[in-house]
């Protein structure tokens, strides 16, 4: 079980390969990657040109670790990895990676989704968008709290 907060990009293929390497108990690997949208398709709002990810150093890793421990308690999984980037990002950049290995797909899917839902609702990250009209802090989505409350 590993969590990392980093400014550098991640290589999803390499992370997946490392997490399941040599483990013949693994039959299922569920992966989620969150990426920066420019928002130009979704609304009349001006296009996002850049995104800054701020976090709360010290709390962030603890928060992610406690979410992974919670997932391990709820689901029969073999291993899990969470990588979250911070700092300056651009549209199409990768933001977050969650990888879960398990024997069967149901547990891998459930745990991966649980990790994302809890991360979205509880981990101390904040997004600030830059557009041609200036910068603004992204508002939290009620749907993210609802997604976490489902579990």
């Amino acid at each position, binding site marked *: 079980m590993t969590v990392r907060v980093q400014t550098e990009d991640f290589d999803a293929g390499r992370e997946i390969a490392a997490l399941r390497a040599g483990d013949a108990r693994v039959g299922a690997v569920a992966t989620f990657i969150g990426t920066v949208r420019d928002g130009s398709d979704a609304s009349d709002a001006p296009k996002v040109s850049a995104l800054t990810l701020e976090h*709360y150093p010290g709390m962030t890793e603890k928060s992610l670790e406690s979410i992974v421990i919670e997932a391990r308690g709820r689901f029969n999984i073999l291993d899990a990895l969470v990588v*979250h980037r911070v700092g300056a990002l651009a549209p199409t950049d990768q*933001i*977050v990676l969650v990888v879960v290995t398990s024997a069967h797909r149901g547990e891998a899917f459930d745990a991966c989704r649980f990790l994302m839902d809890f991360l979205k609702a509880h*981990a101390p990250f*904040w997004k600030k968008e830059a557009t041609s009209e200036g910068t603004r802090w992204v508002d939290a989505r009620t749907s993210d709290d609802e997604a976490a409350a489902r579990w």
Partner: protein
Amino acid sequence: MPDSLTPGLVTVRLVYLARLREAFGSAGESLALSLEDESSVATVLARLRERGGSFALELGSGRAFRVAVNHALVTTDAKLRDGDEVALFPPVTGG
């Protein structure tokens, strides 16, 4: 049991993050709670609101914000001990 290892003196480290850091024009500060104060998060919030301005606005009733003590999310009735780190921040938007 005392709420503090140094009875009667509770100084906490406040941390302001994201939109709140910008609104307050500060990343944080030290705050000493006086002897007559109850040492809880609610007390800290009341002291900050008394300043008016962006503190009263951002921490006002109906405004969504979160509090963590020593890196764990808490509710406003959480008790504080000397040296605690109390972070105030908006609802999170990572992932």
